[in-house]
């Protein structure tokens, strides 16, 4: 028999979607029970367009190739004490944020995709989600392995899972992924695949990895770009799921629009940490947060939303606020961590004179007026041996859980806090923005349950009321992984390795 050539699309269909069948003996809804409660209408799973067509054999082959390269570099990095080649030990603090915040998020995402990949009624979507599930496991584990070497030489990495479940700023990331995972399967995938992966992930990974490259960190560059190669598949899934839902039924359009608005906002809020990392934590700087935002969101995201217009989807209204905030948030976020440096598992510091000038140049409309004076005042106190650590505990936003540091830039008042509030079942709830309030108001039944770290401390659920007890609960101690970089064990070791006094 002469074998005909089977094109990729047909072959892939036979190898995935054709595995499914119509149930005769059980109610299919018992096997796929979560498809309807969100109000999404799927009329025909056959209309699903497979966003990429990797079968398992090809998956194993290409992924093994990537892993082999990656671990060869890890081994070489460890054998050659690669950590000595980074630009400065301050840089390693960006990695601490990454491992403690991003890596557990990858595991959460791996789990979410396993759940979604079990529960979609359509085999094509299931397989795509399952592949992403195993990819996310990869990212989680390659990050743990990349950081493993740094953990041996720097403080702040060693208790990452414990901290992920407890520490105040970890709660921001954890609540994001808890929010995704506690949603239904369609909201989950819109949240992670579309809002996070497609629209925002470039802002997380690409600047991070370019930053690592600029700062001599080969291990991170390698895992980052290697992970990004999977990310391209994930972004494609994100776009496909959106188009599929929108094409299935017109009733899905307003639901999807709500989700896009909600999740872009929640994702954007988390990126405040990336903003601060780019502008403050990289000793060798390559691009400001503002520039990255313009390139990867305003430009690329703009093209995407233009493409989605034909389905009736529009760019969220809040993009104007984001535009106004881009001159401020990195400075404000750094100040949050600087002034709470006693309660963070990484070191903070005031920028050098050179770095201050770079910030002035990158943020000509805001830095000298609002932020430089504060940082200079802090440096003066430091010089007097009175390094500033703020007393007490901040107010948090009920939705994004970020300390309420966002200011009224929309009305040109960058030193006035934004206050938004709702009352539900006779209890008051506070928010950092219209969007966080809107998210709460849509589903107060869900958000009243948020585990807000500050309130938990005051309820006595974090080891006790005193700072020492809370630090013990966090396993953070005092003076090793936290406090200022200057005078830290990290700094002392670095100087010793580098032979400087």
């Amino acid at each position, binding site marked *: *028999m*002469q*074998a*005909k*050539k*089977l094109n990729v699309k047909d072959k892939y269909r036979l*190898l995935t979607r*054709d595995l499914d*069948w119509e149930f*005769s*003996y059980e109610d299919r809804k*018992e*096997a796929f*029970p979560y498809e309807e*409660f969100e109000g999404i209408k799927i009329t025909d799973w056959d209309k699903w367009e497979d966003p990429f067509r990797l*079968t*398992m*054999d090809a*998956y*194993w082959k290409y*992924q093994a190739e990537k*892993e082999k390269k990656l671990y060869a570099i890890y081994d070489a990095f460890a054998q050659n*004490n690669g950590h000595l080649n980074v630009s400065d030990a301050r840089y390693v603090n960006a990695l601490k944020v990454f491992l403690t915040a991003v890596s*557990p998020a990858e*595991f959460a995402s*791996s*789990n979410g995709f*396993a759940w979604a*990949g079990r529960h979609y009624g359509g085999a094509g979507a*299931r*397989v795509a989600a*399952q592949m992403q*599930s*195993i990819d996310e*496991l990869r990212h989680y*584990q390659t990050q743990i*392995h990349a950081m*493993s070497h740094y*953990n041996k*030489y720097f*403080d702040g*990495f*060693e208790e990452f*899972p414990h901290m992920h*479940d407890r520490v105040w700023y970890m*709660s921001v990331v*954890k609540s994001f992924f*808890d*929010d995704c*995972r*506690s949603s*239904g399967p369609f909201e989950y995938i819109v949240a992670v695949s579309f809002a996070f992966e497609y629209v925002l992930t470039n802002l997380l990974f690409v600047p991070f990895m370019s930053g690592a490259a600029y700062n001599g960190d080969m291990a991170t560059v390698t895992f980052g770009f290697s992970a990004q190669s999977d990310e391209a598949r994930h972004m494609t899934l994100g776009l496909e799921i959106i188009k599929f839902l929108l094409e299935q039924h017109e009733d899905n359009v307003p639901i999807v629009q709500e989700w896009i608005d909600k999740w872009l906002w929640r994702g954007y809020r988390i990126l405040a940490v990336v903003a601060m990392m780019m502008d403050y934590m990289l000793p060798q700087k390559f691009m400001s947060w503002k520039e990255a935002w313009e390139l990867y969101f305003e430009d690329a995201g703009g093209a995407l939303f233009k493409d989605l217009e034909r389905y009736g989807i529009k760019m969220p209204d809040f993009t104007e606020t984001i535009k106004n905030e881009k001159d401020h948030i990195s400075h404000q976020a750094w100040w949050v961590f600087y002034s709470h440096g006693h309660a963070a598992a990484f070191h903070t510091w005031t920028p050098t004179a050179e770095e201050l000038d770079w910030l002035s140049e990158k943020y000509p409309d805001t830095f000298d007026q609002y932020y430089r004076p504060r940082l200079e005042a802090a440096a003066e106190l430091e010089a007097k041996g009175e390094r500033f650590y703020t007393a007490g505990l901040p107010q948090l936003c009920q939705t994004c859980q970020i300390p309420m540091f966002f200011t009224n830039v929309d009305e040109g008042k960058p030193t006035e806090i934004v206050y938004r509030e709702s009352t539900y079942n006779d209890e008051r709830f506070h928010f950092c923005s219209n969007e966080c309030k809107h998210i709460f108001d849509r589903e107060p039944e*869900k*958000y009243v349950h948020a*585990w807000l770290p500050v309130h*938990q401390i005051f309820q006595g659920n974090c080891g006790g009321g005193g700072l020492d007890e809370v630090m013990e609960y966090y396993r953070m101690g005092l003076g090793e992984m936290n406090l200022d970089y200057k005078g830290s064990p990290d700094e002392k070791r670095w100087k*010793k*390795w*580098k032979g*400087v006094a």
Partner: protein
Amino acid sequence: MTLEIKTSNIKPIRNTYGHIARRFGDKPASRYQEATYDNAALVNFHYKPLWDPDHDLNDPRRTAIHMEDWYALKDPRQFYYGTYVQNRAQMQEKAEGNFSFFEKRDLGARLSEDVLSKCVRFLLPLRHVEQTANLNNMHCSASTNYCTALAQATKFEAMDRLGNAQYFSRVGLALDGNSGSTLNEAKEFWMTDSAWQGVRALCEKTLTVKDWYETFLAQNLVFDSLLNDLYYRQMDAWLSVNGGQDLLILLDFMSSRLTDSQRWVDSVVKLTAAESDGNKELVQSWISAWRISAQQALEPLASAMLGEEALADAFSALETRLGKIGLGG
């Protein structure tokens, strides 16, 4: 600044992460250990799942089984992502060689009608069984999010089974000249042939089980043991003596994968049952119940495919396996 670095200056300040050191001591840890142990979220979840308000997001109470330490159920293969994909990549490379050898030499043309029809009716519908195993293991993976050791191993099993389903599909394509006709025929058997209906009903039933550990036992121990004996021992033997040896090389991936997968399943079940009488009773009662379902489901298939004795033989293989893991009698 090019000062010489004295290696004595750069001794590590710790050997591994705190949670790994607390478990194994502060010494250099394996990549499996760092990738696996005590790193899943356990407390302080923010929201109740909209789809399951009675449980936390990561919640060991999604099964009736209790374990003092869920990480006791480690993977004897010590697969984390990197070792898993590299292992399977080697296996797929061999499989790829087998398929191209088969296709290049047109070995399909040498198969008798008898072998061919047996293959289409009995072998190819397994792709649907494998897809069920994929979903069942993904259910386990999603439900064991509180313990990476289980979440990853069940995920790897799920992806393996998708791989199996795809390899079975490729067997069909290798036989029908890429037309997909054998796959259509096989699906027709799956949907309507009386020999298959018990199995199909059983597959559909396993997909409705909520307790993930019950799913795990029903799929990976009871059902798989019986099918593995029927296919990778008995059917294998039948093909060998009926001129179907060439076909066997296409099944090589599936049968060689079994060895490591079974070792893992056995180890998990053995340790669970050994943990407490309560666990043991629960495991045994689930096994008994699923044996009865499997008996009824598989009888028509086994008889039609291999004869009257076939299923009894498969059950004695299951007995032997249960005996080895301390659940015999």
